[in-house]
């Protein structure tokens, strides 16, 4: 009998480690879900991970970089290099579909291109009503706007298109 083994390529291994690193502000989204991983390369055998930050002033950036380092240390990678890439600027278009689904399950309305400028009517992540009101374009973090559902009466965050 032949035992089945999965042999992951080195790049897949790196990605599987990154999938366990979460955004500290939205702890259901992994960094690949968030769409901030631009490239995985290797230099002299060490992984080089190119990251694009979300908003210029996002305080999670440094925490994420540290968390990435820690995750790789746990897997025996002592010498990873994290490069920051500014251009092209990060966009919510890079967020994965799985990420958007997880956001909704977590209670945050995912980015919706019809609402690139936040206005009333974003679907409530709890009861799916579109009878919702924009309270403020700035929510608990720079990337979110604040809403209220007029049907289930719950306030909720909307992850803005960026």
């Amino acid at each position: 009998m032949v035992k089945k083994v999965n042999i992951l390529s080195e790049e897949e291994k790196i990605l599987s480690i990154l999938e366990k690193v979460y955004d500290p502000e939205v702890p259901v989204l992994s960094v690949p879900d968030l769409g901030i991983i631009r490239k995985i390369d290797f230099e002299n055998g060490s992984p080089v991970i190119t990251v694009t930050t979300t908003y210029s002033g996002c305080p999670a950036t440094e925490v994420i970089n540290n968390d990435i380092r820690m995750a790789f240390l746990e897997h025996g990678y002592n010498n990873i290099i994290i490069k920051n890439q500014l251009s092209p600027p990060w966009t919510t278009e890079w967020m994965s579909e799985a990420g958007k689904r997880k956001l909704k399950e977590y209670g945050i309305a995912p980015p919706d291109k019809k609402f690139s400028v936040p206005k009333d009517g974003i679907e409530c992540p709890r009861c799916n009503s579109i009878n919702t009101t924009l309270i403020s374009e700035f929510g608990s973090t720079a990337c979110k706007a604040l809403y209220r559902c007029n049907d289930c009466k719950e306030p909720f965050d909307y992850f803005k298109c960026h």
Partner: protein
Amino acid sequence: MVNQSTDQLINYTLHLADNTLILAQRNSEWCGHGPVLEQDIAITNISLDLLGQARNFYQYAAVLLGNGSAEDSLAYLRSEREFKNCLLLELPKGDWAQTILRQFLFSQFQFLLFSKLQNSNQDEQLAAIAAKSLKEVTYHLRWSSEWMIRLGDGTEESNSRVRNAIEELWRYTGELFEPSDYELQLAAEGTGVDVSKLKDEWLNKVKEVFTKATLDIPENIFMQTGGKNGIHTEHLGFILTELQYMQRTYPGAKW
């Protein structure tokens, strides 16, 4: 060895960094003091975006300097005369009307500046920072425009406050469009933006919002300048005292 051209690029980058750092610091004074919770969060979010932009510019300036400077030493260890921010940005936050007006006037300026700077084909890094910042500035401009209309076309009280703010701040807007030596040189090289050419469009956009807000643009106002060359109002010293306190008192402190 830093040649003269790099010198001017460093000055230009520091000017852009100082503009955003000083306004970030001013806006952050609202933290916990905003008129309502949502607006407290909004102005401090804007402050955070500006701080992030400042960090990107300082990091780039540090690379250009190549003398062991870092973003922290550039923000915390330079003195008043070395700061190159426009005077408008260092003035006290005033009341909510004054904070909103300044944010609106500056966001409109940044919007035009970064729209051009993002296409700089001579300097990829400045172009990249501009492109990234522009997305954030677009929100700031929309938010502050809405507030201008709400205040101007609001109650007698809000209208008189925003009129007072215009009277207070307008004389500092001329400096935005009066290029310094380093801006002129960078514009001539195609790296930077000629700010004098942004003035007409800026004025038209400001007028549009002022009209909706039932406000008038002041005319024939004497314009104060100097910040771009390190000649500041007395207010900058007070900001730096607070901003730099920890590094001045405990040099090299880390946490």
